[in-house]
């Protein structure tokens, strides 16, 4: 079964061959982990521990009363050695708990299977998911239990599992689909049960024929679940694009997927959900693709949350001299890191080291109005005009040009021959617009 195409998009070099054939291996737990209290969208968690506390693996160490929030857990057993601000992938310092590992990985007693799925109510399942600290693992890090609790007036009929993995370089989702198809389908079924959805769709880009094959085999006999092959085009995995090509429904401007009866989750989230139900495991580890020409031994690794990038990289043989950019995530939407003393968080799908050859430092020129940015924008914006407005602080004009609809996919800046940082300007305008709207609401 093929899918429709969305308008716009780009075809960057995918470079997935660096890691696509490497099976996921476990990185041994590091001597020290740093666990930020905010690894998700929403209210930050508050620390439940203090220096000197002895912790067990999987023990809850931070939580919040806010609904849109997620607790964090100890990813090693050991001693709390610091509680305080620490470097965060977002660039600023965030409260974090540093744990010195005792090397024993002693599980906390509360980590045990939750019992039979059939006997659980949606409320109970949502509670388990919340307690396990699950967030969207594709990078958006929106708390999973919130996504699974839409208001009653927005019935959900379809759950989509995002296996597009359209970001160049990253192969974590690809490997998970090859290695844990059963867990993905189990996780999807739990989501469908919680939401009362009758249809499950797994969307995979056509450049992963082996994953398509494995997943199709795995859903054989499942009448409600289908696997859809998607065109290989960035940003195929963006929420609105994925929903459009698999269901032909367009999420309204300013709206959410639930407005069209859809919820979507990343494959990593589905697996983590399966582990919560089957084993009671909170989210303490994730698969990270460590890749890029700057990495000596690229790999797909199962890594403890809170592992420092420096430890991760030395496990992969270290960095080459030519490394110029270190990125948390993929090259199109990831965050540039200022150094290696930054922890892996729940949303870290990859650590990418780009070299001198990949990092384009060409001078910015004036816009030649080639319209390439307009033709690649998947949400039909005119990036050149929005960026111009933002540059001149014309926030109202940027708003009129629908800057708030930008999904920050980076296509416009990628394609611009004049090397104008369009996405950056539009992001700024968007932030200003959203701020203003908030203030007006007050």
């Amino acid at each position, binding site marked *: 079964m093929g899918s429709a195409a969305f308008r716009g998009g780009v075809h960057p070099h995918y470079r997935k061959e660096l890691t696509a054939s490497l099976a996921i291996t476990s990185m041994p737990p590091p001597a020290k982990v740093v666990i930020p209290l905010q690894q998700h969208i929403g209210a930050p968690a508050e620390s439940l521990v203090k220096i000197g506390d002895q912790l067990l693996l999987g023990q809850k160490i931070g939580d919040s009363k806010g609904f849109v929030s997620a607790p964090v857990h100890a990813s090693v057993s050991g001693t709390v050695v610091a509680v305080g601000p620490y470097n965060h992938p977002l660039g600023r310092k965030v409260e974090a708990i540093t744990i010195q590992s005792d090397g024993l990985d002693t599980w906390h007693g509360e980590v045990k299977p939750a019992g039979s799925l059939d006997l659980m109510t949606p409320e109970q399942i949502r509670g388990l998911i919340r307690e396990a600290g699950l967030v969207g693992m594709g990078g958006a890090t929106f708390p999973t239990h919130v996504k699974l609790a839409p208001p009653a007036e927005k019935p959900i009929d379809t759950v989509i599992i995002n296996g597009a993995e359209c970001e160049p370089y990253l192969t974590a989702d690809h490997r998970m689909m090859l290695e844990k198809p059963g867990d993905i389908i189990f996780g999807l079924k739990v989501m469908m049960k919680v939401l009362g959805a009758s249809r499950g769709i797994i969307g995979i880009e056509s450049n992963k024929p082996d994953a398509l094959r494995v997943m199709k085999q795995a859903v054989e006999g499942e009448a409600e679940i289908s696997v859809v092959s998607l065109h290989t085009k960035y940003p195929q995995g963006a929420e609105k694009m994925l929903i459009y090509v698999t269901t032909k429904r*367009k999420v*309204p*401007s300013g709206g959410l997927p639930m407005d069209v009866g859809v919820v979507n989750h990343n494959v990593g989230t589905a697996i983590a959900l399966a582990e919560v139900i089957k084993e009671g495991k909170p989210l303490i580890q994730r698969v990270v693709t460590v890749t890029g020409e700057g990495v000596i031994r690229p790999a797909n690794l199962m890594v403890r949350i809170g592992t420092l990038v420096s430890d991760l990289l030395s496990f992969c043989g270290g960095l080459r001299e030519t490394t110029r950019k270190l990125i948390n995530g993929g090259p199109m*939407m990831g965050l540039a890191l200022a150094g290696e003393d930054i922890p892996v968080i729940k949303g870290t799908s990859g650590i990418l080291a780009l070299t001198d050859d990949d990092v384009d*430092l060409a001078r910015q020129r004036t816009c030649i109005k080639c*319209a390439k940015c307009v033709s690649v924008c998947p949400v039909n914006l*005119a990036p050149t005009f929005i960026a111009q407005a933002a540059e001149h602080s014309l926030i109202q004009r940027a708003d009129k040009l629908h800057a708030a609809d930008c999904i920050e996919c980076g296509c416009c800046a*990628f394609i611009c021959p004049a090397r104008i940082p369009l*996405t*950056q300007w539009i992001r700024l305008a968007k932030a200003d617009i959203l701020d203003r709207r908030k203030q007006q609401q007050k």
Partner: protein
Amino acid sequence: MNDKLVISSSPHIRTVESVQSVMIDVLVALFPVALISVLLFGYQALVIMLIAIASAMLAEAAWLRKLDFFGDGSAAVTGLLLAMTLPASAPWWLVMIGSVSAIIIGKQVFGGVGHNIFNPALVGRAILVISWGGHMAGNVWPVPKPFAFTADISAVTTATPLAGTEQALNTTLSQLFIGNVAGSLGETSALALLVGAFWLLYKGHIDWRIPGGFIGTVFIMGAALGEGFYYNQLLTGLFHVLAGGVLLGALFMATDMVTSPVTNRGKLIFGAGCGLMTMLIRLFGVFPEGVTYAILLMNALTPVIDNFTLPKKFGEVKRSA
């Protein structure tokens, strides 16, 4: 922290295309028609093109006080495009003046590439037509002599096909298509122009909507309103498309990125507007040819067109069902 690391906002990878590579692609696209013009008009054509390109690049380098003559390549493109609008008989000083005015008046006074409102090459040409009309008028165009490699500049009697109906009747459409007719360097061979334009379409540097709207409108108006050069109205429409500067204008001048709209609907409107103005000038104006002024006029309207044709954002229409 590591100070070798570059910290900048996503995306972290870029296309290999640059302004310069786009401009080089445009130069490559003009190569077929440049070649044909040398075959038809001899070395004089080559000399004109070289003078035009060199003086454009020099004028830009001097204005910007930079030694990098090629720069982003846009000056070379302007020079070559201007040369394409000149007759093979144009004297060297005329070429130079045209090129320098194209760069300085057409582009730099507006603030340089990207800021200009009008197509610089056409500004240069318009200035030459106004000031030295005698050298630019239709009755001095050299007769092309295929493969002679030197044009006989004295044999300049043939008017371009558009100047009058009698000659027009004698010019067959196939001659127009291949290029064996009198005209400016770039106006002669439809085939060479199309080959170049297809390359640009393939590279994604131009969009079909501008030439489509332009040529389509000229064809329809020519067929509907043209005075029967031929017994067949459709052929009359085709004649209007192939004769004169329509193809050069539609494929290479109107598609100039800086001075045409960025939106898809805007491009179509812009192209159709160029076609409409061209035909109004041809059919009802005092000049036999109107492509230059038609495009310049539409250039001025570009910002307005862009503003009124901003694309509908994704999901503006709720549920496409």
